[in-house]
């Protein structure tokens, strides 16, 4: 019987812990955040978490929302579906949050969608994939621009520059393969011919083999769709192979650190991104300018770390949620409706116009084509 008892003891401790949860009576608006704070996507999740907590502090410092303080519950998904599912369940059922921001990765968002739909809890995702909001799900929103729009802008820029034969490189991750799919789908629309379509593992340390193959084709440009550090390695490898055709990256290139990591090989890389990365070169007339400067200043002074577009997605998501809370209070359906009716919200990613049929709210114009110039992001001149 000892064995059974041993197991029982562990389980009793577990159930005791679940009953002992702090039952906070203080009135507050509870919101949850699920980010890949550790694990391979942590460079995305960490700025998102930082940004969300920063905003919660800001709101509370100003006396909360209509006098009610905001309380954030942050969970780490490690970028893993099972962990994300557990985290979202914890937030909804144990912490009783009104809405959730996250998750970081597309896969984890897809995995938690059935849960938030069933629990009727609004979710604002910081993940890229278009499938999150297409088809539209009642309770699910997202703030990052769509992959399709990124591909649109890349191909558009290429067409303007007379490029028609393109080599595609992508990582075998959710982000990479979604981008690859968009590039394939849109190629015809823009009159592009994909002359090479290569992939690599997210942790590979060398891509010269794939690039050598591309070098053997008549490609006029390379598009690489992946997340760090592969983006820097591709640039370095191209430099090594003496490839002179331009390198386009996806909006995953949105952190100046990758430029540092790639060194001089990063010069001339063209990529679509929210305007956040090139705040200095955004004209004052742009409606986003004020928000961008504000976020950049706040984030960089608080965390002593360069701002990234990923944190920007959380900035947009959190403020949209705060606005919704202002209007609807502690009512999930009210919050949902309020998010859905958000119009003209100026965020770091663009100007958001949500609707019943559009739960992303951004168009291709949310992207600006940037280029790396002397180790800095600069808006690409025509």
């Amino acid at each position, binding site marked *: 019987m000892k064995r059974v008892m041993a197991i029982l003891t562990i389980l009793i401790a577990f159930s005791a812990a679940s009953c002992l949860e702090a039952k906070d009576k203080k009135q507050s608006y509870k919101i949850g955040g699920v980010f890949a704070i*550790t*694990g*391979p996507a*942590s*460079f995305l999740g*960490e700025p998102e978490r930082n940004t969300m907590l920063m905003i919660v502090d800001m709101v509370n410092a100003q006396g909360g929302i209509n006098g009610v303080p905001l309380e954030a519950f942050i969970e780490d998904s490690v970028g893993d579906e099972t962990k994300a599912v557990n985290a979202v369940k914890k937030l909804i059922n144990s912490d009783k949050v009104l809405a959730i921001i996250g998750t970081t990765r597309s896969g984890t968002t897809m995995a938690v969608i059935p849960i938030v739909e069933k629990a009727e809890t609004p979710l604002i995702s910081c993940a890229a994939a278009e499938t999150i909001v297409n088809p539209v799900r009642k309770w699910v929103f997202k703030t990052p621009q769509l992959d399709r729009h990124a591909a649109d802008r890349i191909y558009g820029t290429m067409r303007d520059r007379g490029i028609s034969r393109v080599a595609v490189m992508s990582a*075998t991750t959710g982000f990479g393969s979604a981008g690859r799919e968009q590039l394939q789908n849109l190629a015809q629309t823009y009159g592009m011919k994909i002359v090479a379509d*290569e*992939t*690599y*593992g997210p*942790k*590979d*340390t*060398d891509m*010269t*083999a*794939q690039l*050598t*193959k591309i*070098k*053997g084709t008549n490609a006029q440009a390379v598009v690489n769709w992946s997340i*760090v*550090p592969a983006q*820097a*390695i591709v640039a*370095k490898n191209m*430099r*090594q*192979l*003496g490839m002179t055709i331009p390198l386009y990256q996806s909006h995953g290139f949105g952190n100046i*650190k*990758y430029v*540092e*990591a*790639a*060194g*001089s*090989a990063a010069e001339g890389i063209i990529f679509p991104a929210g305007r956040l990365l090139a705040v200095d070169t955004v004209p004052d007339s742009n409606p986003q300018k004020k928000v961008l400067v504000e976020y950049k200043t706040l984030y960089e002074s608080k965390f002593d770390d360069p701002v990234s577009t990923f944190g920007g997605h959380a900035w947009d998501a959190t403020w949209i949620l705060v606005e919704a809370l202002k209007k609807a209070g502690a009512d999930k359906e009210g919050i949902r409706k309020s998010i859905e009716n958000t119009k003209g919200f100026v965020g770091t990613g663009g100007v958001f116009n949500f609707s019943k049929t559009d739960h992303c709210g951004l168009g291709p114009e949310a992207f600006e084509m940037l280029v790396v110039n002397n180790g800095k992001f600069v808006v690409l001149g025509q």
Partner: protein
Amino acid sequence: MSFASQLLQYTLSGITIGSIYALVAIGFNIIYNSTGIINLAQGDFVMLGGMIAVFFHNTLHFPLVASGPIAALIVALIGILFERFAIHPLKNASVITLVIITIAASILFKGGAMFLWGKDAYSLPSFSGDEPIRFLGATILPQTIWIICVLLFIVAALVCFFRYTMVGRAMKACSYNKRAANIVGINVNNMVMLSFGLSALIGGIAGVIITPISLIEYEKGSLLGLKGFGAAVFGGLGNMGGAVAAGILIGLLESYSAGLLSSGYKDAVALIILLLVLFFRPGGIFARKEVQKLKHY
């Protein structure tokens, strides 16, 4: 780019990446020979080497010549401490228990590195510049030549160490027969500790030299560890020459299949060939029957 020079480029790429696998595989073998265990934290020694070098060079602004060796030595020290605190106390533990401890250590090293340096990828400047060297239509980076030279140097040094030094011979004796080694007066405990130190040192060096070309982040170790393990097994566990050859062979296989077949399946192609070899030669491609030790879990 002509097909011939493309082929040459694949070969060079394969050798570059394969040399790294070979270095990791050598580390696996050193510990395997003295303890019979596979140290699944071997890849994390590589990661630590790179990270610590980055810390000394980029943060403390030590010159590169100093940062690299300091980093490698610190990793060696970490290896020794790891053995003293986590492996040594378990006198009669089974192989699987020790392997699980190395898994736990790997988690700990990763966690520690993430805690200290965050999750970003870092780079070091190349030792001799970034200007690629042209060679029959293919290119090679000066850093690649460094990697290959370091590999050759380490292999040569190890051969001398095991053949001509007392300590090296003692370690070798332990790998053949621990009890006999003990009887002739070799302190087996110290040899195990030394093997962890040595293997961590080699891991650390590997970390330092690859960082300029492949960058380093706290999770980099797992994949390299995996490939190194593959190379060590492929070459026949405990066989240094086999490890080097197998490491480079895996690198070449990956590079050729990425270039000539399908980049998505390149790892699968390398693995399938590795498995086929194992099925026909269950002790690895370079297994010699006499030295083939079958350690049970």
